[in-house]
């Protein structure tokens, strides 16, 4: 077994503990695996020919790995992106896009569009579900707004019917709301995943060049 001198051990432990504190959001089991895998890499690389691991060799190995902050950021993003692509869950997609939003203006708009798409889709579905509960007030309403103007409002039916308004779809609110709502959620998921892939592609650019 390769021996490790005290200074080298201290350097390696400090590096790995800095990395560990920055791997937030990744589950404990995965964090342990990441840390153990890197420890194994560092020891293998720094003890060529089974010699004692010196502080100098450990330092050079850690330098080649890059800073713990950069490494953690790569793990965090790769982990989020992979989970979003595999699960196709709105929560995971929004989680990835939120990370992108914190890094670039394109990411901000992708996140905003995705969250709006999901909200609108869910509103349609909620409206369809609540129509039987509030038959007189829920639905897609046309409301007067000024002299020759009107506005369209998707109402969940809480409160009283608006004066002068007209429920456009009646009981058709239920099937149409469900179909349009599901359609919007599905389209938003496809759009969100497309954005996640664009984000991954933008990460292929060197740091500082990410779109």
């Amino acid at each position, binding site marked *: 077994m390769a021996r490790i001198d005290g200074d080298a051990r201290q350097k390696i432990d400090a590096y790995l503990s800095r990395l560990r504190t920055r791997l937030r959001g990744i589950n404990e089991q995965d964090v342990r695996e*990441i840390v*153990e895998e890197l420890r194994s890499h560092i020891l293998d690389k720094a003890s060529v020919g089974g010699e004692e691991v010196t502080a100098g060799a450990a330092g050079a190995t850690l330098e*080649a790995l890059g800073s713990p902050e950069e490494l953690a950021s790569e*793990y965090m993003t790769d*982990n989020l992106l992979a989970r979003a692509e595999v699960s196709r869950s709105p929560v995971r997609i929004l989680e990835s896009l939120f990370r992108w939003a914190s890094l670039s203006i394109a990411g901000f708009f992708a996140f905003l569009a995705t969250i709006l798409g999901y909200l609108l889709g869910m509103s349609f579905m909620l409206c369809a579900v609540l129509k039987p509960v509030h038959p007189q007030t829920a639905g897609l309403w046309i409301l007067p707004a000024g002299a020759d103007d009107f506005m369209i409002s998707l109402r969940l039916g809480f409160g009283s019917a608006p004066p002068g308004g007209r429920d456009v779809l009646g009981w058709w609110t239920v099937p149409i709301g469900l179909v349009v709502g599901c359609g919007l959620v599905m389209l938003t998921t496809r759009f969100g995943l497309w954005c996640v892939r664009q984000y991954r592609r933008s990460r*292929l650019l060197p740091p500082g060049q990410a779109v």
Partner: protein
Amino acid sequence: MKKADPKDQEAGDKWEVQLRKGCLELAILAALWSQKLYGLEILRRLESDSDLIVSEGTVYPLLSRLKALGLVRSEWVESDAGHPRKYYALTPAGKHRALDMSKTWASFSSSVSKLLAPLGKGK
């Protein structure tokens, strides 16, 4: 003769980094094609057979992503060095992906080579 503009030089370097990073996934899958390897072995393989490695730090997060995508699986194996090593192997989905990527690569590189043929003649 006009000297290369430093800005052009920088853009060229970035293009190269991008190109390498883009090929890294295929290179890792190819390295694992016939055998299971641990991280440092993959790195050494890529360093000796290619100049794809930009930074060692990029390989481990990429391996973790390939695992999350179900393209590779991993197992810990005890070693003589006194610490366990994490070995990676291709899953059937990973083999499929490697074949798909290598086909794309072959047709892409042959079409680019055709386009580049006039540059060789002009030397």
